[in-house]
Each structure stands twice: as C-alpha cells, then as structure tokens.
C-alpha cells in the first residue's frame, strides 16, 4: 500500500475557512459531484474491462465466423442457390448484430462515464438546488448502467415477448435509458442557462446561497500537469493518425472493398472456389486493417480525454505523491501501448494483440488506483465530518 505522508492532501485547503475541519463542500458526502466522479470512473473501468473481455474472447472468433459465412455465400452462388445465399446473409446479419451490440455496449458505457466526469466538472456552473443535482446525478449513473446493459441484451433477448414488430424489450430498455440521459443533460443545460442569467445580475441579487458549488481546487502538481499535457498530446496524436488514415487509406480501403467483393462474386459465379476463398481472406484482411486503424484512432483520443478529465480529480486522490505519479505513469503508458499495439496487430498478429490488451489493463489499473485514492479521500472527509459533528 502507498505510504501516507500527511492526513489530507494539500488540496483539502480549498475548503472554505468557515467550514468544519477537514470538510470539503465540493466533495460532500453523497453530493452530485461525488456521485458523478465515483460513478464515472466505475463506468469507464467497467467499460474497459468489458472491452478487453470482448477483444480476447469474442472479437476474433466472430471475425472468423463472418469469414466462414462469406465462404458459404460464395459456395451458394457457385451452386446457383439464391435461397441459400439469403439464408447465409441472415446468419451474417446475426453475427454482425452480435459483434455490433457488444462494441456499442463497450463504447456507450465508457462514454457515459466520460459524460459523468464532465458533469462533475461543470457542477459549479449549474444553478440548481443540491437535492436536484443529487437526484439528477443518481438518475444519470443508473441510466449510464442500464443503457449499455440494454444494448448488450439486444442480441440475446431479440423479439421475445415483445408487442412491437421490430423492437425488442432490450431495445426498449436501452432507448428508455438513453432518453433519461438526454433528459438529465437537458436539465443540466437549463441549469447552466440559469447560471449565466444569474451571473448577469448583481451579486446581491443572487437568490440562494446554497446553489453555487465550489469550483474544483486549483492545484499545480506534477500528476495533474502530466495528465493534462499527456492527455492533450494523446488527443493530438489521435488526430494526426486520423488525418493520415483519411488522407492515405480511407478512400483506398473503400475502393478495395467493392473490388474484392466484385472479384469474389465473379470467382464464385465462374465456379472457381479457390479464388473465391482467397478473396474472402482478402476481405477479412481488409476488414482487419480498417478495424485496427479505427480502433487505434478512437482509443488514443478517448484515453487522451480520460487523462485530461482525471487531471481535475487529482486533488481528491488521497495517496502519497509517489503513488499518484505511479498511477499517472501506468495510465499514460497503457494509453500509448494499447493503440500502438492495436495498429501493430496487422504485422505481428496475436502477440501485438496480447500486448495491446495489457495496455488496456494498465489503463484500468491506473484508473482503479486513482479511484481507491478518491475513496480514501472521501472516507477521510466523512470520518472527520462525523467526528466534528459529534464534538458539536
């Protein structure tokens, strides 16, 4: 366990002078900000874990089954059996739904976590009562869990017991959770509008002293600077890669896809099954090349944004400076390793894929390490606050 060198981080000094010793109004027990930060980090960590499990146990197997389905389709074309073609494409659609819903569940869980962290950041600028903010935070986190759960279940529940023609109960759950997220964001936007309106009034006219939350502490520490700078550089690298991909590969890949499919169909029609199988393999390689480029681009940008968001909560991470730095290094290291080795999967195959998964694990470990620090900080605050309450 990390060595603890002081009872509270220096940043605890952001608590106003007239508050109870050790208290921090910006991080009050079960406050909206606390819910958003805990819930946000937990959602991101769970989303990353799900993504790693998906990559290891489902992704490659699913791609192989898609290839098998295309080979079967080419055989059906060669045999002149249009009904079998339709049957194969129905199976292919099922495989794509299986893969797509899992990718979507992974992405939506992480994005809900990002939004939660973002909302924690902007709480001082939302002019709503504390109770309303807290209820909205609880609703947001619950919806952030239900949305990816609903998406994940779509493939398994299907239309079982559904009164609708095309929408199953899992879709209803996912859509309802999505609607609740939009509702929370809309109310937050309204609260921000109220904040801007009140700012235009004179300070004396500010009606409710309970409303403003304290801003996040302005700490200029190495972990915070490293996360901010590192995060911005990661986003920048992601953009540079995106520009490179769009400029040199995107159009070529699009041309190649239709060309490969055309050659596949021609070979199958001519009864040349070996050539058709070769084209199916080419199609798989192309799909792999696109997938790794898009995954590298999106992951490096997402990790950059994550690092920037985590820089804001560093004052709440109750760990020694040494351990705070370690978690930052682990997180930034993993944020570079995962996208780089995802790209290298094209050359080095599963070895690079395994290293990429370790990168993802490093991000998760860094994230959980910080979450533990925040839990320790909040626990310390709560104990100090209850002790102060008992003394009074």
């Amino acid at each position, binding site marked *: 366990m990390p060595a603890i060198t002081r009872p509270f981080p220096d940043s605890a000094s952001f608590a106003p002078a007239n508050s109870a010793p050790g208290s921090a109004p910006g991080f009050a027990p079960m406050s909206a900000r606390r819910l958003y930060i805990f819930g946000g980090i937990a959602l991101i960590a769970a989303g990353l874990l799900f993504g790693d499990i998906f990559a290891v146990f489902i992704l490659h197997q699913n791609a192989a089954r898609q290839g098998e389905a295309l080979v079967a389709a080419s055989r059906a074309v060669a045999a*002149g059996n249009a009904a079998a*073609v339709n049957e194969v*494409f129905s199976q292919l659609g099922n495989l794509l739904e299986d893969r797509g819903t899992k990718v979507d569940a992974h992405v939506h869980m992480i994005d809900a976590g990002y939004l939660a962290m*973002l909302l924690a950041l902007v709480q001082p600028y939302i002019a709503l009562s504390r109770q309303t903010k807290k209820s909205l935070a609880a609703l947001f986190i619950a919806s952030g869990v239900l949305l990816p759960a609903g998406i994940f279940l779509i493939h398994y529940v299907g239309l079982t017991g559904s009164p609708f023609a095309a929408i199953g109960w899992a879709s209803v759950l996912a859509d309802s959770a999505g609607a609740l997220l939009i509702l929370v964001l809309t109310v937050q936007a309204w609260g921000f509008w109220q904040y801007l309106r009140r700012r235009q009034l004179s300070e004396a006219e500010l009606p409710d002293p309970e409303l403003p939350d304290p801003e996040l502490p302005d700490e200029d520490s190495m972990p915070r600077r490293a996360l901010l700078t590192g995060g911005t550089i990661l986003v920048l690298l992601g953009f540079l890669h995106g520009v490179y991909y769009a400029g040199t590969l995107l159009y070529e890949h699009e041309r190649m896809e239709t060309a490969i499919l*055309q050659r596949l169909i021609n070979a199958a029609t001519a009864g040349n099954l070996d050539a058709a199988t070769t084209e199916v393999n080419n199609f798989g390689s192309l799909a792999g090349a696109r997938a790794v480029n898009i995954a590298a681009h999106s992951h490096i940008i997402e990790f950059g944004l994550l690092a920037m968001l985590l820089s804001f909560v560093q004052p709440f991470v109750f760990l020694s400076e040494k351990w705070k730095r370690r978690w930052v290094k682990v997180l930034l290291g993993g944020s570079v390793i995962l996208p780089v080795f995802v790209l290298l999967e094209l050359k080095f195959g599963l070895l690079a894929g395994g290293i990429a998964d370790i990168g993802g694990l490093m991000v998760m470990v860094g994230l959980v390490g910080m979450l533990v620090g925040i839990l320790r900080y909040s626990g310390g605050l709560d104990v100090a606050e209850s002790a102060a309450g008992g003394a009074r």
Partner: protein
Amino acid sequence: MALAAFGMIYGLQYALFVEHQTLDHMGGSLAQSFSAAASRNLGQSQAALEQYGETKYDYVRQVDAHSHWVGLAMLMIVLGVIFERVNFSEGIRQMVAFSLLAGSALFPLAVILQTYHHGALVLKALAVVGSGLVIVALAATAWGFARPHTTA
C-alpha cells in the same frame, strides 16, 4: 456546448429517421448482389454492389461527422474549464480557441457535405483545413499546458 448539442441532435435525428433504413439498404444491397449472382444475373448483381458501396460511403461519413462533432465539443468543454492554464498571452489563447472552434465545426461539416457531392475536391480540402486547424490548436494547447507558470 452548442456544438455538442447540435452534434447530438443531428445524431438523434439520423438514428431515428435515417440509420435503420440505411443499414437495411446496405445489407440488402449486398445480399441482393450475391443473390442475383446466384441467379446468374450479373448486371443486377453489379448494380446492387455499386449501390452497397455508395450507401456505405454515405453511412461512414454520416457516423463520422456525428461522432467527431460530439467528441470535439466534449474536448472543447474540458479545455474551456482549464484554458487559463494554457500559458500564453490572452491574444494567443483566443487565437488558439478560435482555431479549435472553427476547425471543430468545419471539419465534420465538410465530411458530411461529401455525402451530397461524392469525392468533391473542395470539400476534401475544407476537411483538411478544418482538421489542420484542430491539430495546430491542440499542439499549441499541449505546449501551453507544459510551459511553466511563471511567464503567464
């Protein structure tokens, strides 16, 4: 926030009114291409394959524009909260912020307009300019964050 709201509303209307039809059309075209080939109707097979290619071209760009609008808006919200930490003079900071905003709006817009004019050079150039603005602004921001706080 305005860009994020716009990006989300665009995504919502696309998901509700266009996406399912587009996906059905895309999958249907590919299946039809194979099915027509099985019936030895090669002309219809090729037409369906071309239709698949065009639909996918549009779909990829629609989704990209939506996700880039929202993503860049989230990035700007985060940077907005801490932009005073970008250690440059106020004038340079404003220029960086304007570049980021202009690039974030222009780049996805140029991408989405490409769905109406496939392969138009002007739109490709606009996308390059937009992404270039974002890249330069981000590089400046990273540099500004890394600079020590004594010279601000």
